């Protein structure tokens, strides 16, 4: 682990079908709002659910390829890196996700 804090547990969150294909799902995990996104290829990514621009809820955006477009002012974020793409600069915190037996596990850091 990169941190010297205690190892963070994987949390069993939901079944993969709970997140629509090319869609998203809000999750509130220990008071923190996380967005879960499922791409066309059924990969799942987790990022903080607040756009660095004006706090737009990213889960309300349209998911395309491996990115999501913020519903408020159309910033586009890469789901893998959390980086804004195109002209905008900003980043959302990403979180590790694993799929085990059709269930989504997430590890919340930071």
């Amino acid at each position, binding site marked *: 682990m990169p941190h010297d804090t205690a190892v963070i547990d994987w*949390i069993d*969150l*939901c079944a993969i079908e*709970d*997140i*629509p*294909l*090319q*869609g998203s*799902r*809000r*999750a*509130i*995990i*220990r*008071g923190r*709002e996380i967005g*879960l996104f499922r*791409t*066309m290829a059924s990969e799942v990514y987790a990022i903080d659910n607040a756009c660095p621009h*004006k*706090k*737009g*809820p990213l889960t*309300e*955006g*349209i*998911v*395309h*390829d491996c990115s999501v*477009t913020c*519903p*408020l002012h*159309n910033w*586009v974020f890469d789901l893998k890196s959390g980086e804004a793409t*195109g*002209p905008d600069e900003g980043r959302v915190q990403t979180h590790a996700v694993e799929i085990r037996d059709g269930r989504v596990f997430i590890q919340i850091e930071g």
Partner: protein
Amino acid sequence: MKPRLVVIGNGMAPGRALETLFEAAPDAYEVIIFNAEPRVNYNRIMLSPVLSGEQSFDDIIIHGDGWYEEHNITLHRGARVTQIDREAKTVTSAAGITESYDKLIIATGSNPFIIPCPGHKLHGVLAYRDLDDVEKMIEFSNKENSSAVVIGGGLLGLEAAAGLKMQGMDVTVLHLMPTLMERQLDPSAGYLLEKELSSRGIKIMTKANTKEIVGTDCVEAVLLEDGTRLKADMVVMAVGIRPSVELAKEAGLDTGRGIQVSSNMQTSDPDIYSVGECVEFEGNVYGLVAPLYEQARVLGMHLAGEADHAFAHSETSTKLKVTGVDLFSAGDFAEGENREEIVFRDAARGIYKRLVLEEDRLIGAVLYGETADGAWFFQKIKEGAPIASEDRENLIFGQSFSGAAPLDPTAAVAALPDDAEICGCNGVSKGKIVSAIEKEGLKDLAGVRSCTKASASCGTCTGLVESLLAYTLGDEFGGTKVTVCGCTDLGPGDVRRLIVAKELKSIPAIMQELGWKTSGGCAKCRPALNYYLIATWPGEYVDDQQSRFINERVHANIQKDGTYSVVPRAWGGLTTSKELRAIADVVDKFEIPTVKYTGGQRIDLLGVKKDDLPAVWKDLNNAGMVSGHAYAKGLRTVKTCVGTDWCRFGTQDSTGLGVKLEKLMWGSWSPAKVKLAVSGCPRNCAESTCKDIGVVCVDSGYELHFGGAAGMHIQGTQILCKVETEEEAIEYCAALLQAYREQGWYLERIYKWADRVGYDTIRSMIADDEEGRKAFYQRFLHSQQFAQDDPWAQRASQGVDAHEFAPLTLEPAE
């Protein structure tokens, strides 16, 4: 101590001169300005949109207070200079403010000419020159049933007439000559213009000679030589302007028609300069800004110590700024020996173009109805280059057909400084755009948009951005083809056609068959494709939730803080005590912070938490209300007035018709939002003439309108046709909506669709072709069978898309 630069007049010309000066030599002078008007520098050209109500004064300010502060300028507002003392080098205002100068600029503009006929001093006789005039005109127009006579059918007079008409006045234009704008237009174009303005209800009287303005204190009527008497509460004189030279003349400067200047804008006193409409240069005076801005540039550079700029006379071109009238003229288009003309007419579309050539050079152009090539022709006139005989054939079709490199717009943007702001919404400068194009290797508008955000907001700067692309890339710039988005090279029209032709029935099928460049599309094309499929295959295609913008996905409007607003439907704007009580209860129960009436006569509940949405809907549903689709690219509202039920003027049951239309059309998706209105009489209280579809009831039936807009772009409707019965009104409106649903491009409002396919085409499709209309109507009815499910009920009671509303929650197990 810095030298003192005093300016008399705060109009467009000196404003530009100072900009040039500050750029070249920011701290060279201490600047003092006297302005007879009590206000900052504004764009006089845009007074007409202010008069018509399309813009506000704030929209047309060129230099706000901050600009004067930033440059340490002393601005004496409402201070008319009455004396220049060249010995003492001072100027003095009427109220006695005196300032000394080292350099002086006289920029007094011009005075409107008032015909000294009997009655010209009565209250209500106005010129059209500044904001005060506009404010007075608006005041008159606010009176019930007021009428105006505009004397002068030139540029200004017609703009005034159109503006006053839009303010609801009864307007007559008197013009001495046989056709309008005879100095800028030939008789054919003048005729088309007259026809267009008449169709908007402006009365035009040509060969009309004013004899007298009648009235005791206030204007009551206008009397013509031929005995005609026209009732009038106000008379606008727009018969010409004269350079304002009195001040300069009294100071002993050389004047002719204007204040005489050399090519670096010096008057006969080398410390005194003059710019703008008050100037005479080589016998010419000017009344349009382009040459004045050139004068201003020369003067600004000269004052900054860069003497190698000289003003030279050049041609000017004219455009009439009346919304919806496209008219352009430049150069000389009189007939004459050695002159040849090329004429193009398309009567059906109201297009007329005429080019005048003399010895193979283009010397004049008049364009009516389609003016996109105006700047290009104008450049050819200015260049005076010979037109090769092989190019002549296609010349009249303009730039795109002549295969020439785009000249004028490119030249115009090339001349802009790097820090010129191109996109106002996003504050992007020319320099930023050009360097992005170069560094990022951008090739098209979409690239510039995504890389710099320029033109990505309200889009009014799109043309400029394209010119910048052309200027930076030269031949490499392929021009602009509208494509659905960056994922495809196909335009929306192609895609719609291919969906039908190839029977494509899903988004993946379209992407596969039409060679999409991305695997899953993007946030732009997916909503568009989803709509095209819904509209093309009603009852068959299954809506793709993930391809809808959040508002449509959750059937509420997302607000800036991530909460939602909810608008229940109120049929035709009607409600009941029961509904109001239910709404009040919902507001209390869910602690909804704001309740507001919308412009479309509906109640908006703002600030609803997403998790509460299903419960809010359930309560509203229980009281009989359904979603108002206030978020939809679809039918939103049908606004109504009270009609015969209550109003003493109502001619038909406008509320009832509104309710019927709304019940018929609700739930239908369309390329962009659709709003209707039904007014019970021509007083038009429901504002039907700025809606996508409007109905104005009259004694003999129903006047159907379409193509209005009142958003970022404002325009009045055009008439579709008149029908006699309510059944017909309903059938025609639904057929029109269906035609738009089948032909419109996603996000294209009805007026834009009509601009693209032609208003006349639509009229003939709906009004003239009975069989076609009935078929559209039937297809609409068919499609509605599958559309009219209340989306709120489905989500509140039937659990549709429950995952949208309930978050996954995990709390620590402590």
